[in-house]
């Protein structure tokens, strides 16, 4: 399966790229201005005026992003009632899924664990977009709730370094048509 860019990731990459370019431009401008001669008093007057607003801006962005993020946490809430539990077991260097397939639209709860070392379940949709990941930890069960609407083969790759065959530790989970 070939990987493809995921929509949220592309949007986030664009945001990062824009901010990075702005910062680079700012450093070019400041570097250019470094050669000029401006009194310390003037730099302090303008600099401190701007710094208060810069602080307010960063705090506002932080509060906004923090608030929005709370509506999209990947953590499970409540019991598994109404969900089909899929037991996911990882080990050097394999994945097992029980059951190995569910009908499209099923509300799934992945119950992920490991029999040996830490692994990570990176789940890709049938088109090769990364849906997300959750860790597989020995002695613990991480539970991930998803509703997979699109039929097809969902590939799983290991997302936590686990030894010599980490890069080829594949698995697959199938979503069938209704």
């Amino acid at each position, binding site marked *: 399966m070939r990987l493809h860019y995921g929509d949220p990731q592309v949007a986030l990459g664009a945001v990062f790229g824009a901010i990075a370019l702005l910062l680079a431009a700012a450093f070019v401008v400041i570097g250019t201005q470094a050669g000029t001669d401006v009194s310390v008093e003037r730099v*302090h007057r303008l600099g401190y005026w701007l710094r208060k607003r810069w602080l307010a801006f960063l705090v506002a962005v932080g509060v906004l*992003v923090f608030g929005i993020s709370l509506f999209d946490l990947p953590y499970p809430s409540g019991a598994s009632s109404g969900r089909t539990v899929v037991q996911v077991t990882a080990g050097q260097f394999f994945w097992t899924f029980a059951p190995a397939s569910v009908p499209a639209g099923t509300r799934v709860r992945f119950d992920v664990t490991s029999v040996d070392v830490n692994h990570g379940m990176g789940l890709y949709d049938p088109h090769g977009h990364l849906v997300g990941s959750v860790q597989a930890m020995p002695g*613990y069960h991480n539970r991930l709730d998803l509703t997979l609407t699109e039929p097809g083969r969902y590939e799983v790759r290991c997302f936590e370094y686990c030894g010599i065959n980490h890069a080829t530790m594949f698995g697959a989970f199938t979503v069938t048509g209704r």
Partner: protein
Amino acid sequence: MEAATVRAPAVLHPRAAEFTAAEGALERRVGLLYGATGIALVALMGVLGLVMRLDQGTVIGIPAAWFYRLMTLHGLGMLTGVLVAMMGALWYVLRLVVPLRPGWMLAAWGLIVAGAVAVVVSTLSGFAAGWTFLPPLPFFPAGQWAAWTEIAFFAGLTLVGLGFAVFCLDVVERTTGTYGGLVRTLGLRYLLGREEDAPPPQAIAATVVAIDGLVAGSAGMTIVLGLLGRTYDSRVAFDALVAKNLVYFFGHTVANLTIYLAAGALYVLVPRYAGRAYQTTKPFVAAWMGSFVFILTAYSHHLYMDFVQPTWAEIGSQAVSYAALIPVAVITIYSMTMLVWGSRYRWTLASTLLYLGFAGWAIGGVGAVIDSVIPINFRFHNTVWVVAHFHTYLMMGVVLWSVAFLAHVLERAADATTSPARRAAAIVPVLVGGYGLTATWFVEGILGIPRRYALQPAGTSGYSEVGAGFALLFAVGFGLLLLQLGPLARAGWALRGPLPAAALPAPARNGPPLATPQQLAVAVAASVVALAAFFPQVVHATEASMRYHHLAHAAQFFLGATLGLVLGSLPAVSRRLGERSGLGFAAALGAPTAMMLVMTPGIYEPLERHPVDHFLYHLGMAALGLVSGLGASRLGLVAGRLTYVAAVGMPVMFAAAMKGA
């Protein structure tokens, strides 16, 4: 503030003479030793990184086993390299105002170099569990490494950690001694308006970094000692979640501290080229108090995708990870741009790299902050996006500052810099190659490529190929940068002459850790409560669980350590024991180390067969505590209390991390 000098060095800004102290021979030699060692490690580890990128791009082919060995070595070696360089930089600027001990710094260097050699031997002989060695991976080698390489790796890591701890303790003891206690040293009395003056910026930064370093180091020591016990007895088992918390609490924090070490030095170095002194202000103190807390509490974002981690810890970590940005963005980086703006900045090799490092820190930091939002991390966790952002602020930030520091020491010695054309010839490929390389990783992260893959997913090796091209370009530029240091070193050597010793205040300390009758009484009361750990019923009850039994050991150690602290703080005893900081430090940390090593089933089981042996074993725990407490009492009020807390905390963390045996 640094003392004024008479002569204005030509390489610095003309106005810098007003506030730039002339470093002595010691500062210069230690600076060169640490700078050169750090850069040598960085360069060697960079070559390994280049090999890995070329392999991912299928330009060359190395076996997967070697890829992961090099990956493990590259990670820990690079971190050690920048840590060493930045320790040297901070020492270099702090020694101008605080009487740090050169002997301790040399001991730290020896420990770190010995540790680095052990890690190199271990990894080249097969050990490849990654530098984060998430337990229990080191003990599931899949036929790739021998048990002795595990021992060598963990022993090496312990030595590196000890070297850093020696540095941190020297800093805490001497800064708090010089400025009169922790509250004054951190500038809190100044912040609250109770004093007119505050310590210089580098002293506040160094104290924060050193305390955070000791706390994080104690967590690292704890888990590494548990792992060493596991190499001796395979029945030792870890709680994977607690172990992961300890690994990242240590690993994230120390990696993060390399940047904050650098910040402490930058407050002194950048003004020398800008001709504007950087002084402690109230926002500065407030910012560093924020960083003090944020540095220690942000690590849980490494466990976002471990859903069994308490949700409050995950959400709290998200808040703290963002909050950590505020002091950096509003104070440190922003203030540096204010220093530079309109200053007729003196562009030299060192000052150019100092300035460029801020850009790497800022840009990489944005990538990290984006990734620290939980729903976003769900889509980026352990993808190459992570590799992209940390390389941006480490490779294009701290590594550039490491070269800048060495260049600064050499520029000061030579009182000259290199030609603009030569600088440009090196810096342009460094910038294009470096940001090109990290850009390929950012793009791969968006694509969803996992990190730490020897073999790239089908159809994606082209990104690595392009990345390898940029990496080669960066390597060429970096090589050209290093080549410019040679002529500076030669010019500096030609101008060598006697250097005046820095005019430093006499070493001072703040009295014993327990200074008042009330403090002694509280400690004695705590010891009486801890006696419960010896009650037969309590000891018997804890036998039912390995974790609780280890906790009982920790309580017995606590009893001994507290009594040791009380005893060592008594004026009559304290006078007889003398200062003996070095010995005190060795005892304070050596005792819990020995304690955790003997808490291996293969060692203690034979002692449990007879009740007398068993009792003596428990008594031995308290005796080790006593040694530790007495040792801590030799370190003075602040460093002594801090070491005591770290020493007592280690067995508690150990108990939490052990699942059974």
